[in-house]
């Protein structure tokens, strides 16, 4: 197996140009939403709005302004599939369409997926969506086809500020840690890494440098595996099955009943 590969997205230098979104759409031949009819979000300059089956990269615009507009800042983050080491989507997929590649990335095989949508509900980050062209669930493949021939993913290639960096996870972690230290020395407080260590779902192979709480960027603070409820849920349900079974035996068993009154249940 090749060394695990991934993304380090440094949000402190993202300028919101959306070149990554465009490059992703171009390379992966993802069509426009709504048949090309533009719809505006109405409450933000961000009109892509979310990751889904047609948008595998999404530059999130977080607009933090005071009521009087005298003070404020933009937080910009190019969001993408996290390629979790412990991937919830892969865990629930009933067809085996979701696989882990030799690069330790997570890919949905479109020719196997039958569109049950279990992975959409299982992903803690809301990354996956249905692609209306293939009628299957789709998301970022970390440009598996480009990786196979030694190219870097299209989004990282197109990023003009190197906010999106591609490389081996080991190398990216070193770079990310150095960047946090650098920002701290420059007096930029509050920068931290999201998903870089293995405490979050075994580690995110696409991790981020953030400047505010995860929720501000639309990221969960504590993402979990879908199976976390399974053991307790199965236990409670089995106990209930036993109780219902006993209720049935108690109600239906033969005990020399007299013929009941025909008119009363």
């Amino acid at each position, binding site marked *: 197996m090749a060394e695990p590969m991934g993304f380090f997205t440094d949000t402190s230098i993202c300028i919101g140009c959306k070149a990554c979104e465009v490059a992703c759409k171009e390379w992966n031949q993802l069509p426009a939403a709504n048949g090309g009819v533009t719809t505006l979000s109405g409450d933000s300059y961000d009109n892509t709005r*979310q990751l889904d089956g047609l948008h595998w990269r999404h530059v999130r615009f977080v607009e933090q302004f005071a009521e009087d507009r005298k003070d404020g800042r933009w937080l910009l983050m190019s969001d993408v599939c996290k390629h979790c080491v412990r991937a919830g989507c892969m865990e629930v997929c009933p*067809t085996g369409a979701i696989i882990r590649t030799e690069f330790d990335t997570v890919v949905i095989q479109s020719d196997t997926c039958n569109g049950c949508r279990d992975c959409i509900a299982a992903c803690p980050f809301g990354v996956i969506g249905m692609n209306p062209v293939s009628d299957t669930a789709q998301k970022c493949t970390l440009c598996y086809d480009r990786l196979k021939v030694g190219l870097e993913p299209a989004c990282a290639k197109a990023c003009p500020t190197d906010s999106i960096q591609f490389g081996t996870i080991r190398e990216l972690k070193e770079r990310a840690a150095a960047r946090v230290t650098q920002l701290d020395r420059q007096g930029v407080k509050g920068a931290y890494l999201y998903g870089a260590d293995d405490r979050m779902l075994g580690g995110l192979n696409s991790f981020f440098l953030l400047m505010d709480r995860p*929720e501000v960027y639309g990221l969960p603070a504590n993402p979990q595996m879908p199976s976390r409820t399974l053991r307790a849920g199965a236990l409670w349900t089995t106990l209930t099955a036993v109780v*219902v079974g006993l209720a049935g035996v108690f109600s*239906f068993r033969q005990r020399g009943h007299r013929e009941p009154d025909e008119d009363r249940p």
Partner: protein
Amino acid sequence: MNAEMLPSTLFSAAPHWKWLIIWYFFIGGLAGGTFFLAALLDLVGDVRDRALARLGYLIAFPAVLVCGLLLIVDLGRPSRFWHMLIQSNTGWPMFKAYSPMSLGAWALLVFGFFAFLAFLAALGDRGRAGGRWRIRLRPPGALGALVAVGGGIGGLFLSGYTGLLLAATNRPIWSDTTLLGVSFLISAASTSSALLIVLGRRLGGVYALRRLARFEVIVMVLELIALVALVVSLGPLARAWLSVWGVLLVVGVAGLGILVPLVLHWRGGWRAAVAGGVLVLVGGFLFRVVIVLSSEHLGRTI
């Protein structure tokens, strides 16, 4: 916006499981539940229960067929439904013990097989030509007992796993409790016995129906307890039901679907029991509507 206290499940995307899945959960519960009750009546009841048990088998198999169709139609690519059972690239069986959807696909197949055998037996009971061998597929007798026990366990599984299927996600409400399977299973038992009471009254077998009504009262009390426990287990997320969904849950599911039928049962009389049965069926359906759609409308839903 104060985002500090947001539960992590609010950041997931909705899978758009809607009416087809709601009907699947409801009819799947009826398929599993009616078979389970029929099998139990056959195994621990006496000859006076056979007509009602036969009705249960006659309902279970067509219902499980409808379930399969609903699930296939709901897929993005219905022609690939078999990918749930067979690996499309190797031809080997596709099975994941830790994926409730994978388990459920196999459960439908296995339960459907037992339901088909019992259905044949129930048809054979009508005394048609060739009916004699088919009757052996129902208790008493070893083969019949095997079908009843296998299908009964399969029926209970089908009734309860749907709750676990919703829980094994990262969606709000569904994955914020471990009690969905409990509520789904009890609701399947109550709706199934209600259906047998409503349809079985025409068979005229009061003896079996009376005992079914006793079972119905027990499970409705259990259902009410499970519903309260479910709401409590959600903690702060239960506030999501301070909406039209909560009104539907309290008035439709708890009130019309459990409390009114309980009162009707205690009042007595067959007409009241049948009316109560109809209300239980409506309440059971509304329960699934609330659980599925109230989560679909939370978090990122576009």
